[in-house]
């Protein structure tokens, strides 16, 4: 084997006093880290293969395993740090583009963590969510510009198509193919149980999941995989994916190895062929082209479905969103630069795009300045990690949020960021049958329901403490927010005051 210059990032530590050589770790690791040495009666591990997915650690019955950051260090250098050197070695060996998965892990500011929430004291009462109604229901879609009445003076129901959510949260687009059948089933069933929606992503909709249609957003992306009339008609809304926070400006690539069986049929492409989504939609080179696709989809579905346009948060996002709002979109989803992905070029993921907090605040303000905020709803995505992030996003101006990574974590993902390898030991981002069966959708859906039930309680507690008993009164209510440790420009863009003001 040629020298690749690399040293492993992690060490697998096995406590031999605890190990009972049950060999579960060996069977559980699709990366082949663990190996049983017959003659020594011992398990050994190859650190170089470990992605730190924690599968073996979680399943070891005697807690004999732990994975730690390797203590091996290169000569210390603030500029040429170990990561930079390793990436360079890897490219010098392969000649290829570095690939990564899941969201940007680099130490950029996390604005949600520099924003604090308000609470009522004395002059107005906080409201106890255990004793009083606390409303989290939201509608997504445009508002009619005029109130019309019939001859008797009754208000006519002139509402354009819209979505109703029991909680301002949806599962964001993750395609069947990039994640497993069981993962999709878990999301669909959880969405139905919770009264929210999940999103097919760009891989089409498996035949078995049409029954969850009223809780489904069907996506149309640049590859148009799996898009046909029945597909469009099956969901509650249609999403045009113009961009993704993890990889703005580029398309997607699902390797042929994942295009097997049902995935090939659902995507309507031959087995084993790579599914490559072009960087742009080749029928959308301008804003006026987008309008044509929006209305084509509306025509195709008889103006019965709201159309979502999903864009990545990039520098010019406010102007882009304004253009999209004027192009027939009913809902705009903005995906921040920390959003997840099943695979993206590392340099794109880590260096392109802007934080969702700033993009959301900017877009909400721009749409209000232009008087068109009630023509569209805004969905914020790109690393919503907790109920507090949701409350802050809504107070900044979002109507609802998308969660992707958080949902996968609920299913067992440990953020090893190796989805692109296709060997997800948790059975989520893989199509290998022995691995996919590890995710039990009965348990998976319940864990998603649990997560959002817990978040719902927390959202209600935070609302109640602010004296707000309907989430609609939190939307865009930026006086409920204060910044800590932010400079004047950041506060200005977020449209919030500093703590103490």
């Amino acid at each position: 084997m040629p020298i690749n210059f690399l040293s492993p990032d992690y060490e697998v530590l096995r406590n031999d006093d605890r190990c009972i050589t049950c060999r579960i770790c060996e069977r559980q690791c699709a990366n082949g880290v663990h190996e049983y040495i017959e003659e020594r009666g011992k398990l050994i591990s190859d650190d170089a293969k470990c992605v730190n997915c924690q599968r073996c650690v979680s399943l070891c019955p005697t807690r004999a395993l732990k994975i730690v950051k390797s203590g091996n260090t290169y000569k210390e250098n603030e500029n040429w740090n170990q990561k930079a050197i390793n990436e360079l070695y890897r490219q010098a060996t392969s000649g290829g583009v570095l690939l990564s998965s899941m969201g940007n892990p680099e130490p950029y500011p996390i604005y949600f963590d520099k924003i604090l929430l308000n609470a009522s004291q004395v002059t107005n009462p906080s409201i106890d969510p255990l004793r009083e109604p606390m409303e989290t229901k939201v509608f997504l879609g445009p508002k009619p510009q005029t109130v019309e009445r019939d001859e008797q003076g009754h208000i006519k129901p002139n509402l354009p198509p819209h979505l109703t959510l029991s909680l301002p949260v949806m599962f964001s687009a993750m395609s069947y193919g990039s994640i497993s059948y069981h993962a999709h089933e878990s999301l669909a069933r959880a969405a139905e149980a919770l009264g929210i929606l999940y999103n097919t992503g760009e891989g089409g909709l498996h035949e078995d999941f049409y029954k969850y249609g009223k809780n489904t957003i069907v996506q149309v992306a640049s590859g148009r995989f799996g898009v046909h009339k029945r597909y469009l008609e099956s969901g509650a809304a249609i999403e045009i994916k113009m961009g993704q926070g993890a990889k703005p400006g580029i398309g997607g690539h699902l390797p042929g190895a994942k295009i097997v069986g049902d995935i090939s049929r659902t995507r309507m492409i031959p087995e084993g062929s790579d599914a490559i989504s072009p960087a742009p939609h080749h029928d959308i080179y301008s804003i006026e082209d987008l309008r044509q696709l929006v209305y084509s989809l509306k025509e195709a579905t008889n103006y019965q479905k709201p159309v979502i346009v999903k864009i990545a948060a990039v520098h010019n996002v406010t102007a882009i969103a304004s253009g999209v709002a004027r192009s027939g979109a009913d809902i705009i989803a903005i995906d921040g630069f920390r959003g997840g992905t099943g695979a993206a070029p590392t340099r794109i993921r880590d260096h392109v795009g802007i934080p969702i907090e700033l993009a959301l605040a900017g877009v909400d303000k721009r749409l209000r300045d232009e008087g068109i905020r009630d023509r569209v709803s805004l969905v914020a995505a790109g690393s919503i990690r907790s109920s507090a992030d949701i409350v802050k996003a809504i107070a900044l101006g979002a109507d609802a949020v998308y969660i992707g990574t958080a949902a996968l974590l609920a299913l067992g993902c440990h953020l090893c960021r190796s989805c692109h390898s296709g060997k997800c030991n948790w059975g989520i981002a893989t199509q290998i049958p022995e691995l996919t069966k590890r995710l039990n959708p009965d348990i998976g859906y319940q864990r998603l329901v649990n997560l959002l039930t817990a978040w719902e309680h927390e959202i209600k507690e935070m609302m109640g403490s602010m004296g707000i008993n309907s989430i609609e009164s939190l939307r865009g209510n930026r006086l409920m927010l204060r910044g800590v440790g932010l400079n004047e420009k950041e506060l200005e863009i977020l449209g919030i005051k500093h703590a103490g003001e």
Partner: protein
Amino acid sequence: MKEGQVRIPAGCAISGIFNKSGKRFSGEDILRSITVMHDRSNGLGGGFAGYGIYPEYKDYYAFHIFYDNALMKKECEEFLERHFDIINLSKIPTRKTKEITDEPLIWRYFVTPLPTKLSASQLDEREFVSKCVFRINARINGAYVFSSGKNMGVFKAVGFPEAVGRFYRLEEYEGHCFTAHGRYPTNTPGWWGGAHPFALLDYSVVHNGEISSYDANRRSIEMYGYRCTLQTDTEVITYIIDYLHRQKGLTFKEISAVIAAPFWQTIERMPPEKRALHEYLRNVFSAQLITGPFSILVGWNGGLMALNDRLKLRSMVVGEKGDTVYMASEESAIRIIEPALDKVWMPKGGEPVIVELSGVEVNSHAH
């Protein structure tokens, strides 16, 4: 005003009297009513609105304006002359009292839009007038229009409401409806313009509470061209009411279902048609929902509405005697002027009490 000189607990006093037959009565009653609730104010603001008080000028917009100095007055009058026909102007009569000090120049104008300006603006008359009011308040620093309706007027100042009433010689006015406000601000420096009622055109609002939806309401209403310069709840509530009533044509009952919307659990139990209406209103006007404690009296030419927040986090009592309806923060404020009421009750949260004139024309623009 330094922090610590005022007790912090919030509270305000509001009171209203409305005669359904349009019979006019003196401002003395409302003055006595609000005086009883002295302890609900802290001397940082008081005010009154009277309806039907200018019958001789009922077809003209009555502008009440505060000026910081004569220079601002000159600038504002030039603006008025460019846009309106000024039928009459005068100082608003006041009485010197030692409780009320630092008064600005207080002037009253009866105006009607210049036909050429109005037609060039392509706006309806009331929209034109409201735009001019916003223009003066935003652009002419030191001039502030605090009343702009027909056949109605607002009188307000920094001080306890009973002193404010005496200062403005309220007992000399007669109208079919009066509302009053005693202010207990915790976070506002006393400024005359910041006292209540707050009014736009003939809509006036007195409010007791501190709403938690403020910034959501403010940012949504500003999208429709309103400018919240005072940053008070009452200001934004007035604009919401103007928007929903004048711009969107909702009835006051529908408005109450928007700003103090029934809970979803209540809506779900309604008969289908009613349920559909409430779902529609809550969906379309979700940004105008007001949360947190409030009790308000909304006056307009022809009516008066009392409304509490959806949880009734502030007090509000309504009483009736003959064709007169009384609404106040406390029953004592009603009993002091009418001890023998036919009926007295406390409306539920979100349940509006709307009273209207029966067939009496108040001005040329009847609602």
